[in-house]
């Protein structure tokens, strides 16, 4: 029982971690909690689903379609809705993000219908036993995918020119602009990367639960936000750690406390972490000035 829940939690946690990275990257660069991120996650899953049902695409292609589609949506979102508000008070930007979230949810409802769509099974299911823990093929795929994405992201952020420019922009946008970095482009790149990772998580969730529906991004989005805050918002390793901690505590909590309040556990963690250590596990403490 404990082992099963632990594996479940690991799989769930990797998905939260992938989604939380999008939150944390966007927050790092424009100090916005991109509330629509959860819905980009859902849009990505729907794109992948459509490519499978309409064109019989293989899994890899479906992944690519979902991730590419979602990153286009992310860039459009930041260009059309957020760009005009970069200089406005942050609360306006956040309200626009909420607007975008509602828009995406209802857009998906209009296009794909409010019902739950079944994600077709594209792989053979086996059970594996590693270190005494039982994994299904899907769980292995989720873990492997997450690890691959994390390594790629780490390389991109730390080893490439784009990554350096991105980190500069996150640290100080004005100075970065003075140094000749096209900060607007960096914002779009951030949105594209965050959205495509979110979409990957969405597709994995769709496969894991074999269900894709318009509101799937709402709860996962909120939980990924909790994961990002838990790890320290703005920090990429923090988001990974936060996601795993949240996923495992949620699975164990649902198993041992109450499954009806499964979704409540994340919020209790959020309120606790914000009260005890608002900067998160790996976050930096910032001082506010008048």
């Amino acid at each position, binding site marked *: 029982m404990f082992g099963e829940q632990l594996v479940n939690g690991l799989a769930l946690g990797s998905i939260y971690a992938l989604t939380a990275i999008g939150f944390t990257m966007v927050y790092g660069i424009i100090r916005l909690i991109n509330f629509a991120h959860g819905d980009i996650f859902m849009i990505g899953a729907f794109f992948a689903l459509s490519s499978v049902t309409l064109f019989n695409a293989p899994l890899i292609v479906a992944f690519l379609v979902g991730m590419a589609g979602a990153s286009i949506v992310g860039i459009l979102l930041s260009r059309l809705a957020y760009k*005009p508000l970069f200089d406005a008070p942050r609360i306006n930007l956040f309200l626009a993000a*909420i*607007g975008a*979230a509602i828009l995406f949810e*209802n*857009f998906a409802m209009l*296009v794909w219908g409010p019902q739950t769509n079944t994600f077709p099974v594209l792989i053979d299911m086996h059970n594996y036993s590693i270190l005494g823990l039982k994994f299904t093929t899907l769980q292995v795929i989720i873990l492997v995918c997450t690890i691959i994405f994390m390594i790629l992201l780490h390389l991109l952020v730390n080893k490439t020119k784009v990554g350096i420019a991105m980190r500069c922009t996150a640290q100080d946008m004005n100075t970065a602009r003075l140094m000749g970095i096209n900060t607007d482009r960096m914002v779009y790149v951030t949105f594209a990367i965050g959205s495509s990772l979110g979409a990957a998580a969405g597709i994995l969730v769709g496969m894991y639960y074999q269900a894709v529906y318009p509101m799937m991004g709402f*709860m996962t989005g909120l939980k990924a936000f909790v994961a990002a805050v838990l790890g320290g918002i703005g920090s990429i390793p923090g988001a990974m750690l936060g996601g795993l901690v949240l996923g495992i505590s949620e699975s164990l909590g649902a198993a041992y406390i109450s499954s009806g309040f499964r979704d409540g556990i994340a*919020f209790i963690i959020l309120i606790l972490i914000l009260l005890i250590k608002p900067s998160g596990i790996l976050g930096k403490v910032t001082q506010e000035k008048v």
Partner: protein
Amino acid sequence: MFFKVLLNLTIAALVLYIVVKFLSMLFDQVTFWVTSLEEKKRRYLLGGFGIFLIALPWLTAGNPYLLRTILIVGIYIILALSLNLIIGFAGQLSIGHAAFYAIGAYTTALLTVSLGLNFWLAFILSFVVAGLFGFLLGVPILRLKGDYLAIATIGFGEIVRLALINGGDITRGPAGIPGIPSPSIFGFVFNDNISWYYFIYLMVVITVIISYNLLNSRLGRGLIAIRDDEIAAEAMGVKPSYLKILVFTLGAALAGIAGSIFASYIHYVNPDSYTYLESVTMLMMVVLGGIGSIPGVIVGAAILAILPEMLRTVELYRFAIYGLLLIIMMIARPEGMISMTSLRGGKKPSWQFLKLGKLLKPSED
């Protein structure tokens, strides 16, 4: 299907942008006209409006559907004004207001149906219980700022909804509680829309008076100071946490009243009426009308409560349009239709928008 919806929404976005721009001009003109009236004339205007409100149910006598819509508008005005206390005056973004609405409604339902209590007692207890929840929630989470607070309140809203669904025999799960009796006073039973109208609009007037008095008191000025700059306000001797918790409690309690009225008016409560989207609708009312501006919030509540009735033909698009509207409002008119600054009077607004050059270069304003 994908491209059809995309096309429709693009057209909707353009139309909304023009409508928002045009309405802003219109409201600027009207606000300027009203604020520049003499005190005496303004009183006549207010008096005329009062008489209109009293006569309204008789004017709509032939159309019960219209009167019912007006009642719902009244309930939303109370909700939007109570949310405005929190968002507009204290500047604390709360997107879980439907939770307090639900708590008020369920308190009334449980007390009148399960315990057989008198409505008026349940009504007062709804106020108290919702306020108590507001207080208990406010103490820990009002330390958070801006968007963090917003997410925490969304979380609270979801927890309340989950608690109602999983409440077992007490809340009767998703099925809800039917059979809430109509209130009565001295043998007079509130069972037609006209008596409900007077009751609801009496509560609206009381809420408006509370809002105005709060705004013009020492407390209200403290709240505005907190909204503008919390740290500076604290340095000036305002106690932010005390004031924020106070106004959060009051806002929650007023939402509880609205819930109590709604539950006994439709004689039924179930968790579906108090979702996240309901909280968003309330938020939209405040934002559309003008954050912090009382006439603005009333207008915003009226527009957004009537709009779905008019959008019946495009019902499916309703919330998509809300989402678009929120984004467009933030870009085109973030201060809302009747903003707090325009209420204080000022320069005469112009009809600049009607010139085409302005329309082609909207980024200039």
